[in-house]
């Protein structure tokens, strides 16, 4: 029987003072007992709002019921039908603006912790190797996938299940896209990403690293090699710049460089890993999204004493997951909102301080959020490093080598309702199409595109 008055079950966490010295996961997840207590709060709505708000429509009340019945295998299978990466999405989805944000319990109480329940079931499935998919009879049709981020992984899994001969080409030396080089270990252990990749290998998906489509091999050349359909999931990797004086000084990092040095190159283990990183005592991070929070919390873990977020809107408008903002603040990261950097000062070509203009919020802008308006008042902060995390645009490499691939002015690949691009047989999805978004949206796009690609292969 659902228990409405029961408060939301807390998720155990590493204490802030311990965790700022390590890269282990911060949120420890539910035990089975805790998961059941939380699951009991779900009132099993007739028309579940949570499901409608999940971008891939995970059958939430259904998996929760199985969980309560102790049928964890069925719970896993229920989620897996819609979401092949539950361990990952349970950890990183912005649940407050998706499933949990719509949960009926929000109205009077607190929403069901769907993320933590999904994580619990996903981890159970990984531990028990439940993600075994049936592969249809081999069709012998070759499909190429550009990029091994969540869009590419989901696309590969879906097309492989249909029996196609699938190869993923990845530019970097490790697979996973942002899951590997962007999101830090303390939020998403790399062993989970690796498990998911291994899963694909078991299914018979081929993976090739160190291949940059557009450079090493062009789309045309892929077609010549017999790839009949191509999916582009190349993400939004190109960092946006502040375009203010001093941005190229030493000590100013783009978040991608900073996070890549740590997550991909393991510079926190320097010198046993050969790639160094430098962090001073005082660090500023410009931006208010997940990338900014990840950079700030990483800076703290590799030795910064004081870390400050610098963001031009206010606390209510921080785009980061709410949990990450809370975790960051508990770790001692300060939030300098309503500040916008205008100039970076340096000595001997190394950053020493940043001058910010104080902002106030004005009318709503196109995004529906109140526009930050300059006040003409300034404040300067002394800093040893400044990390710029103000957004990313789609990676331009593929476009520049593929003139027929139509893109928007801002770089996003143009697709039709079947996810097909301006090129016949070339489909696309994820951040490369939408601009920087979320893991679940990228995954959903990859999966949906797979349906259309399968249709394309069968009817061409």
């Amino acid at each position, binding site marked *: 029987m659902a228990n409405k008055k029961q408060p939301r079950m807390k998720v155990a966490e590493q204490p802030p003072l311990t965790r700022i010295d390590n890269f282990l996961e911060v949120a420890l997840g539910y035990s089975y007992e805790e998961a059941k207590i939380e699951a009991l709060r779900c009132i099993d709505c007739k028309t579940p709002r949570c499901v409608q708000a999940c971008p891939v429509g995970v059958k939430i009340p259904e998996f929760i019921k199985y969980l309560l019945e102790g049928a964890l295998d069925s719970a896993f299978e229920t989620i897996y039908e819609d979401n092949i990466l539950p361990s990952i999405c349970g950890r990183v989805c912005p649940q407050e603006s998706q499933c949990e944000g719509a949960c009926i319990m929000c109205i009077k109480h607190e929403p069901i912790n769907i993320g933590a329940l999904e994580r619990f079931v996903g981890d159970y499935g990984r531990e028990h190797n439940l993600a075994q998919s049936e592969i249809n009879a081999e069709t012998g049709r070759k499909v190429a996938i550009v990029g091994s981020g969540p869009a590419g992984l989901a696309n590969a899994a879906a097309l492989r299940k249909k029996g196609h001969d699938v190869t993923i080409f990845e*530019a*970097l*030396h490790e697979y996973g896209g942002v899951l590997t*080089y962007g999101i830090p270990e303390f939020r998403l252990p790399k062993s989970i990403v690796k498990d998911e990749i291994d899963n694909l290998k078991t299914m018979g998906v081929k993976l*090739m*690293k*160190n*291949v*940059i489509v557009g*450079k*090493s*091999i*062009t789309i045309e*050349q892929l077609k010549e090699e017999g790839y009949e359909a191509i999916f582009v999931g190349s993400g939004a*990797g*190109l*960092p946006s*710049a502040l*375009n203010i004086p001093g*941005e*190229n000084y*030493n*000590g100013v*990092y*783009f978040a*991608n*460089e900073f996070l*890549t*040095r740590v997550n991909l*190159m*393991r510079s926190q*283990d*320097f*010198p*046993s*890993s*050969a*790639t*160094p990183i*430098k962090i001073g005592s005082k660090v500023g991070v410009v931006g208010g999204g997940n990338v900014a929070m990840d950079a700030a919390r990483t800076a703290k873990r590799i030795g910064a004493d004081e870390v400050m977020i610098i963001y031009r809107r206010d606390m209510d408008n921080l785009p980061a997951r709410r949990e990450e903002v809370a975790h960051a603040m508990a770790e001692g990261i300060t939030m300098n909102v309503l500040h916008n950097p205008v100039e970076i000062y340096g000595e*001997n*070509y*190394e950053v020493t301080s940043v001058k910010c203009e104080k902002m106030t919020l004005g009318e709503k802008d196109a995004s529906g959020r109140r526009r930050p308006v300059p006040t003409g008042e300034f404040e300067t902060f002394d800093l040893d490093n400044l990390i710029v995390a103000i957004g990313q645009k789609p*990676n*331009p*490499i593929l476009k*520049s080598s593929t003139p027929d691939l139509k893109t928007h002015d801002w770089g996003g690949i143009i697709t039709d309702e079947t996810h097909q691009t301006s090129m016949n047989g070339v489909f696309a999805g994820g951040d490369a199409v939408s601009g920087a978004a979320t893991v679940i949206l990228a995954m959903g796009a990859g999966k949906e595109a797979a349906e259309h690609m399968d249709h394309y292969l069968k009817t061409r």
Partner: protein
Amino acid sequence: MYTILKKERLNDLVDFMRIDAPMVARNAKPGHFIILRVDADGERIPLTIAGHDATSVDIIYQKMGYSTERLGQKEVGDSVEDFVGPLGQAAHIRDKKSVIGVAGGVGAAPLLPQMKAYKEKGAYVRVIIGAKNKDLLILKSQYEAFVDELYITTDDGSLGEKGMVTAPLERLLKETAADHVVAIGPVMMMKFAAQTAKTYGRSVDVSLNPIMIDGTGMCGNCRVTVDGKTRFACIDGPDFDGADVDFDGLMKRQAYYSLEEHTCKIKLGYHGE
């Protein structure tokens, strides 16, 4: 696996290697570079493609520090962990009647395919190569085989003219109608070569070598200031119009990790200096 097919010692500091890498060789052109990792905990380092055939790629590297020393320890039959490319924009071979190529040290390697391309396009090609001394000078005979005029300078005068490459460059700019300069080498050398070319009103291309990680435009580590604007050397370059480059900023950015690079060398058993 990226197997080492051939290895040659060009001098005490510089090796040539041919590496089996069909995915890189296929679309390689002069001016492109690769990024490699010697081993699983290695750093990603960029090296210019010095030549290629259908399935293999040549590199010429100077042993500067940890990663290039580690690479130098590999022998024929060994392999490197990762090898990706071709990266960057292919060299822009301009419509010029007469060009002067200027190389310092290991810069002679990336300059070679570009000069060959100019020659094939019908330009009159003069090349100046400079080195510390005669033993460190590389690719002399390869240049002699096709250039119209070859000039050599060494810091100690052990071969060719004593002094820096800028002296013969200035002379040639004064005395000939050469209309374009391509300079590749240490940043300081490129800076002076670019200044000299500019003084004499000639166009100049340089090849920039900032610190890189991914080489795909993702990290922003390789940013350089050209004509007051920020450019990514790995996707917009590495070749740029030398008249507008902020060479001083580039030198500072290259030196940002010098202390850490030294730490890494100690790992290889280096002490002192």
